[in-house]
């Protein structure tokens, strides 16, 4: 056990949790290194900039280490950490939402044709999501990727269920428009724009 990088790949999830519970910095670093890249994606999905995402990542990991003693292992460690990331990101966004509250947006007609995202790089998808308006970005993440229902989103964000639905609908429409452009580009030039 010379440093955190070595034990990070060798240790089981339970060993990592036990080490972190004792406050051992090497184990904490190992846990961080195991999950930081995945969690960075989560934070980026909810943020507008990389710096903002890193702030959320830092704050959330501190919370993880401070509250891991109370982690009862009813869920997978990754799921638990992701939940902390999402909650921390939402807390950061709430301040902005207080200034610019989410409102019902006009329903939009979704394109009829099927749009595939299989050829689009994840970084591009991330850019598309981050380019969405604040409310749309949060609701889309919570509904489409985290898997929350509109009712749960409404409760969590303090908005009506209708607002959540309309924000999602708007987000989806904007994404599809953007995806259509990308697929046209792909058809024209034969490769994905990365």
């Amino acid at each position, binding site marked *: 056990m010379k440093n955190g990088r070595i034990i990070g790949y060798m240790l089981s999830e339970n060993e990592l949790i036990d080490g972190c519970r004792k406050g051992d910095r090497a184990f904490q670093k190992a846990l961080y290194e195991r999950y930081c890249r995945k969690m960075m994606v989560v934070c980026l999905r909810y943020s507008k900039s990389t710096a903002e995402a890193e702030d959320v990542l830092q704050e959330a990991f501190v919370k993880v*280490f401070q509250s891991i003693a109370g982690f009862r292992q009813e869920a997978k460690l990754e799921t638990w950490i992701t939940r902390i990331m999402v909650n921390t990101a939402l807390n950061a966004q709430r301040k902005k939402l207080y200034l610019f509250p989410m409102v019902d947006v006009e329903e939009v007609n979704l394109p009829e044709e099927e*749009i595939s995202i*299989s050829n689009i790089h994840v970084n591009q998808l991330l850019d598309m999501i981050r380019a969405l308006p604040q409310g749309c970005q949060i609701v889309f993440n919570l509904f489409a990727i985290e898997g929350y229902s509109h009712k749960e989103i409404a409760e969590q964000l303090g908005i009506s269920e209708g607002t959540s639905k309309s924000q999602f609908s708007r987000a989806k429409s904007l994404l599809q428009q953007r995806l259509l452009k990308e697929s046209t580009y792909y058809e024209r030039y034969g490769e994905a724009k990365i």
Partner: protein
Amino acid sequence: MNDMERRKFEDSFKDAFERAEISPSESVWTNIELDLERAESGKMKRRILFYKLLAAASVAFAMSVAGVGYYSMKNQTVMSGQLAESSSQQHSKGEINQPTTSGETDNVSGMNNASSERTTGTSVGAESASNELSVKVDGDARQHMASTDNSSLAQQRSHSFTSSNDHVPQPQAQHQGTSEFSGQDRTPRQSTITSQVLAPTSLASTGVWNAKPVDQLPSKVKPTHSLTGEEQAAEVDPVAVLMAKLEQREKELQAEEAKENKKNNFTDERLWTSVGFAAGAFSAGSSEMSASATAFNTAANQQVTASGVAYSMGVSVGTRLSNRWVLQGGVNYQTQSSDYTANSVVGTSDFQEFYAASVNTADKVDNRILSTDPYSVNNSLRFVTVPMQAGYMVVNKQFGLQLNAGLSTDLFLQNTITPEGGSLDKTTQGRGEESPYRSVNFSGLFGTELTYKIGNHYRVALNPGLRYPLNSIYKSDTGIDSAPLTFDVGLRFRYIFQP
């Protein structure tokens, strides 16, 4: 687009991000580490504050209990003194009334003699009983006297005290006086009234009144004289009431005295032994290090000023010196552990081995310091301590409260420097010339002990306390002056040899 396709759209996003990974910048972990260390030091500060408050609260509690106990004890003594004094004043009033009524100033001196002699005890009381006041009054005046409370009181006192005190000689004049006074013939004539000066059976010099049981008074009084109906009504005796009160108080005092005597034997819980452990925190406080601010000295300074946790375990024996005072001694094994951040390492002369920067490596410093990234180092000190404390038992019942103060001889064993991260080896330095720590230290101890008796032979004790080294724990040639103040809370199990 139907619902299934819409769901497919959302799932495709979910799948796309399922395995996605993006590396954050290196600074994120550094910031997390800093945040964690800041939080831990805040936690430590809160813990130290908690122990400080606990110790302060214990001391304040002990002092207030001691104060209340002392006040109530003192108050009781004053009350009993006042009661005895007021009873003597009552008697004095009764005596003074007679000569005032009769106007015979000559008799006052005799009465005063008796009054002053009364305080000297039983034998003097007996003597004073022989003092007679011959008061000449005319018939009207005599009748008036007989009908007043004062005269009847004086008379009753005369009878009660003379009759209750068997060995007091009964002067003949008294019989004359009383027979004349209570006789049928009330024609005005010159008569001699023997006013028997109050003769208490005993009056201790402390002011405690020792009277005979009050129920003897009426039986002894009755046969000696008979009073008219008015006189009998006047006889309903405030003095007897007062006597009864005094009697009651006397019994109480006797009971208290007996209790006190029992306590003074202090034969119970005379000798005990205990085993226990304590946990707490220490703070280096105003430690000083006379050295320039190099990378090495910064680390050493952090080591010297670092706060940390302290644990100890050990055995002790205690004995009672008196009713309230106890003496306790024992032997403990104590560790003090603290963390500090170093940003340099010290190499050996051939640069083959490196050690964490610490006070221990101060003599290896010359041109062999290498700066590094900040890393955490743990310093663990071990001592054997021999405490000797005197204690005062404020409360010693089922629940006990004791204030302790004393001295401890601390024998330094070793200190271990453990760099975290694993790239540097830990080093252990025992006592002796190589060590920067003094081999023997002396510490002042102060604390309280809250105990609870379980059965005949056991007490469990919770003792918060302070430990303050009377000298720097570092050798004087290191230029470091540090006397860390330790707050700890101990839990001890006491076995009582003589319950």
